[in-house]
């Protein structure tokens, strides 16, 4: 890819991130009154705290200067102090990143693999019973609110069958003799949230893969390949699949924002100690600094991930090079 396009993409991403920062600033400072009135809603606020905050955020300065103070604090990694945890927001966030990354990473990989297989089989058996079955399963999964799917899984596998623990990441208070025992415990806690997350995504991946695969299979070069006498699995692997994968890359990138939404729901239902659950906690306690920090972290991560996938797409699709 040439440098100009790359720079342009990075520039646009920079603008979007700047938008987010401005948006975030106005949302939390200007819209509901200033930060003082927000803090004052909390009964535990003391006059000293208010004086401190006024100084920290430069609330006695004109509005545009306040914005620069906000940017300065941000770049120094200061997102304020959480009302609920009484700790810096950055410290609270740092402890919750890993569980979310583990949950999303594993679920995403499973969903992509299963979704692609479902889609290929569906497209290949188009109009047959298997296709109808897979397609309706996918549509059903796609229409379900993710948190509700989680509630059903809990009902079946935790309450009725007692196969898995109901929530959390480790059994509270349990002392592990071996590392293996601890890993085993975490895995047992992880099965349902990961399955729920993956099931929520599989539907859309399968439907998209099916329709692009059908598109590709009706192309002339597939007919040509057949006429040349190649076997069906060979054509599928070497001619159809590489071309059908391109829209999937885009979809996976677009879905990143959606997956975050899914994580908030699933972590809430399964009390998984990650960023999503933290967002629910921050929301219930109206912990505005924490909510704002989470919003910034999640949004900027998704924007950056989109840029990266955009660049990867150009490498994957030789037509874009020219």
């Amino acid at each position, binding site marked *: 890819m040439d440098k100009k396009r790359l720079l342009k993409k990075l520039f646009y991403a920079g603008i*979007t991130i700047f938008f*987010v920062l401005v948006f975030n600033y106005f949302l939390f400072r200007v819209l509901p009154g200033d930060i003082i009135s927000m803090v004052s809603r909390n009964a535990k606020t003391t006059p000293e705290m208010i004086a401190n905050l006024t100084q920290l955020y430069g609330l006695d300065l004109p509005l545009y200067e306040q914005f620069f103070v906000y940017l300065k604090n941000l770049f120094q990694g200061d997102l304020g102090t959480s009302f609920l945890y009484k700790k810096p927001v950055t410290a609270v966030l740092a402890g919750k990143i890993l569980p979310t990354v583990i949950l999303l990473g594993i679920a995403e990989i499973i969903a992509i693999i299963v979704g692609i297989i479902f889609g290929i089989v569906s497209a290949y058996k188009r109009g047959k019973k298997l296709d109808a079955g897979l397609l309706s399963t996918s549509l059903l999964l796609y229409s379900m609110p993710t948190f509700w799917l989680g509630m059903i899984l809990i009902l079946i596998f935790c309450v009725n069958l007692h196969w898995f623990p*109901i929530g959390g990441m480790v059994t509270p208070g349990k002392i592990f003799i071996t590392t293996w025992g601890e890993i085993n415990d975490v895995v047992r806690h992880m099965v349902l949230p990961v399955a729920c997350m993956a099931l929520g995504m599989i539907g859309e991946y399968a439907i998209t893969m099916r329709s692009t695969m059908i598109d590709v299979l009706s192309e002339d070069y597939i007919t040509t390949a057949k006429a040349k006498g190649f076997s069906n699995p060979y054509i599928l692997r070497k001619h159809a699949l590489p071309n059908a994968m391109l829209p999937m890359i885009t979809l996976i990138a677009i879905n990143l924002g*959606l997956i975050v*939404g899914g994580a*908030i729901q699933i972590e809430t239902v399964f009390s998984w100690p990650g960023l999503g659950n933290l967002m629910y906690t921050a929301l219930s306690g109206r912990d505005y600094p924490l909510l704002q920090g989470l919003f910034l972290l999640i949004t900027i991560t998704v924007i950056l991930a989109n840029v990266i996938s955009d660049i990867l797409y150009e490498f994957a699709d030789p037509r874009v090079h020219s």
Partner: protein
Amino acid sequence: MNSVKMELRKRKIKEFAHQVRVNKMAFVGSLTLGFFILVAIFGPILVPFDVMKFGLATEMLMPPSSQHILGTDDMGRDVLAYLISGARVSLMVGALATLLSMGIGTLIGIVAGYKGKVIDNVLMRITDFFLVIPWLPLMMVLAAILGTSIWNIILVIGITSWAGTARIVRAQTLSVREQQFVERTVSLGAGSIHIMIHHILPNVFPLIFANTVLIAAAAITSETTLSFLGLGDPSHASWGMMLHYAFETGATSAGAYWYFLPPGLCVVAVVLAFTLMGYAFDEILNPKLKER
């Protein structure tokens, strides 16, 4: 001239209605949706229970019986009655949010496509912004700040979900703008607002029809999710609010399936109906897809 146009439009609508009947997906979808709309309109009149009346302590979280077909919730309220009154709230929020979202999306798409240049560039950057930022955190933050009322929920869903529509409308506007009849109208001295409303909008409309139905599905899901996360309006009991109360009071771990399964099933049925209709409309209105 005008009567010929009207006649043509009538014939097109008739043809469309015929195809909806023939197309299995569209038929099942509209039948399901019709059922829920009827329930939303007439249901509350037919229900023998007062939804807001709490039951006795002995009636709390009772499994289905002959007296309460779907059992009772943690307050001793009849789940079926609750479910029926929830239909009205959920469908209304979905419809109004969709209307708002389509309005914003169409306006921005047409103006960006028709005006072009700087206006297009600025509007498309804003669209990209809304397209790329994760919708649920954005909605949660907005709803938390605006406060929990049913109108805020509608507003929040509306202003976070229009970006896709704007893109589609803009692309279509760009192609319509280049057509000769627009050029002729311009040379006759028509203003740009007149052209956008009378010439571009009617040509863009068929394209956004399928999109509208899919937005409606997303709006219903969004309302359910926001309410579940505690951002719903406590005085308007939607299906999402039911699920919120069920989760908060531990109905899941208590195994009270009759409390949280029905509202979820209703959401799935409505969303599925919209999705089926969306796909079917796309197939009917988009002749390219039909051959496949």
